[in-house]
């Protein structure tokens, strides 16, 4: 079932077109990556999805129904711009935000404690928010998004400012939630994270969806023209006509093939003079696809 369906939504602020006839679907139990350069319209899209602003045209469907505010208690939103009440105690803050999402005070309190224990910040629960480190505040905000057990979780740059250990912890939490059937929208600039976590993506640029679909399907649209070779001996094969450009390291080279070139020709040339330990024909990384797609548009 599609948890979110955006159908041709548009939003214009004064003369700037923020979102232009954008459509996307997010399924239950899937992690969806919303990507795009700064100012592409990601935040504007998310804001329309949850009714912070209304689209000028097009329609928003949440949980199979036309947008309605009463469904917002089933949504958890972690905005990119983090905000907590600085002077408020962590537990009071979590209970308040839980209540705002429809929980009663007692449930909000007990769930806050469970989550804080799980994310290893139970010690901070009676402190004021301003006394916490940035990473801890991030975790508190993360918890506040999940307290009411939303079926749709929207996370804008959830791991920014976190150390690798905490990033790992939150990533695992998100994967568990996904496996429990929640729909997760994940917006970030970190392509490696998207590549690892997301099932499908939508790349937005200039308010339009320029690339979208399942992760595998999107990647398969791009030719496998990237070769990694581990070798010993002569590296003169990098001058082979099939090579467009290359980066050479000691015993390791990364090669970009010319369009239409055959990787087998290169392999043939390579093992003439060198001992090949590894020859891998790789699909382009999401980062390369991103740069290629957005860069092409920027040049156009």
């Amino acid at each position: 079932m599609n948890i979110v369906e955006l159908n041709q939504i548009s939003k214009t602020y004064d003369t700037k077109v923020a979102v232009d006839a954008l459509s996307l679907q997010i399924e239950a139990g899937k992690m969806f990556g919303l990507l795009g350069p700064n100012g592409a319209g990601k935040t504007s899209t998310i804001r329309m999805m949850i009714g912070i602003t209304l689209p000028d045209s097009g329609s928003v469907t949440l949980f199979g129904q036309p947008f309605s505010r009463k469904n917002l208690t089933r949504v958890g939103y972690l905005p990119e711009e983090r905000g907590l009440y600085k002077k408020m105690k962590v537990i009071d803050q979590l209970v308040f935000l839980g209540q705002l999402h429809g929980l009663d005070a007692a449930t909000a309190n007990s769930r806050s404690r469970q989550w804080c224990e799980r994310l290893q910040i139970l010690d901070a629960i009676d402190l004021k928010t301003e006394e916490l480190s940035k990473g801890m505040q991030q975790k508190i905000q993360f918890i506040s998004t999940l307290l009411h057990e939303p079926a749709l979780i929207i996370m804008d740059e959830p791991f920014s400012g976190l150390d690798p250990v905490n990033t790992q912890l939150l990533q695992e939490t998100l994967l568990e939630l996904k496996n429990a059937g929640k729909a997760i929208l994940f917006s970030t600039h970190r392509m490696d994270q998207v590549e690892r976590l997301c099932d499908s993506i939508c790349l937005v640029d200039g308010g339009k969806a320029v690339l979208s679909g399942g992760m595998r399907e999107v990647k398969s649209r791009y030719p496998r023209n990237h070769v990694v070779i581990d070798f010993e001996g002569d590296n003169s094969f990098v001058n082979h006509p099939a090579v467009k450009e290359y980066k050479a390291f000691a015993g390791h080279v990364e090669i970009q093939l010319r369009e239409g070139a055959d990787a087998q020709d290169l392999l043939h040339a390579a093992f003439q003079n060198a001992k090949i330990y590894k020859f891998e024909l790789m699909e382009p990384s999401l980062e390369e696809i991103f740069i290629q797609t957005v860069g092409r548009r920027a040049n156009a």
Partner: protein
Amino acid sequence: MREALLVAKREYVERVRSKAFRISTIVIPLAFAAVIGMGAFSGKMATGPSNIVVASNDLVLAQSTRTELLRVPTAKDDARGSRRGPPQQLQVEVQAPVAESDLASLNHQVESKAIDGYLWLNVQPGQAVPQATYVSRGSADFFGADRMQTAIGEALVREALMNHGVASSQADGLLHDVDLKTRQVKGGEAVASDASKSFWGAYIMAFILYFSVVFYGMNVAHSVVAEKTSRVFEVLLATAKPESLMAGKLLGVGAAGLTQMAVWITAVLLLSASALGAELGQGGLAAYGVTPIQLVFLVLYFLLGFFFYSALSAGFGATVSQESEVQQFSMILVMPQLVGLILMVYILGNPSAWPVVLLSLFPPCTPIVMCLRMSAMVVPWWQLALSVVLMVAATYAVLWVASRIYRVGILMYGKRPTLPEMIRWLSYS
């Protein structure tokens, strides 16, 4: 509604729990007391010389001037300010009859601080009024001079009366001040009123109103800006409507304001019930011309004024991105009310003049001006009703506009919007 109440509760609890709230609850009345005390203190300081000599070539005049100077001041003198301070602080010595040539030694005594000054009354033959000169170290002492002038005048009248065969006791009776009682028509009956106390009552009420509306209005603005700069809004807006957030904020801050006022009023009531209060207040609020109905309207106008001005400041607060920018529009909140305070004397003197009536019906000025008018006269009921209706309508209009500006403004950062931009925001959905 649930959202608005949750927001209001959070706002209220956090505010009342805060250190700033506890401090301001204590410090603000202390500051008021200090200002009032300072006024009283400076009055006391200006009681004039305490050790003077009355010198004259006419012994009788000198002595009766001394008597008048030492006479216990009457209530009327107090009100006029011509006889301040307890007379026992004053020591008056008579040197008479002396000639003008003897004054050199008195000058010397003043200079050596043996005495604070001397009053030289020179009676010229054939002239009814003596030449009076006061010599002291200071260049001017207005309270003392005023007091001496009165004393000499009364001494002369007494002397003249006695010269015409009027007995001393009769002269006393004639010189005794007429005690003028003022009464104010309230509710068709002439009730006792004290002009100066009524004035103070009106002044204090107007000031409380002005202060609390401005203070809590600014609180709303600061709290909006704080949520904006800390970016809490984005989270709140994911479930709550901007209208609920704003309504909750106004209710929460308003309730905190009422709590603070309730603390103060309770303290005043306790104080006026105590012995100290009995001495100070002499009959509590009623003596200050404050009737229960006025108190009801005071609270009503506080609420209306509060919602009017804090909706305005919520709207303005949403348009700025930094705390420091809040000051820029504080003048807009203060000005209309300041008009009421500046024109206070005129309003109290002419409570039914048409410009005053119009001013009291103009919503931004209504709370203070109406409050002042009510203490000076019985305001026709239709004017009260009209002012409340206009105020409610204006508050509703301000809430409508402010909530739209708020809705768009709280998500905007960076450049301050221009007025045309803000007007355009009204049509955004």
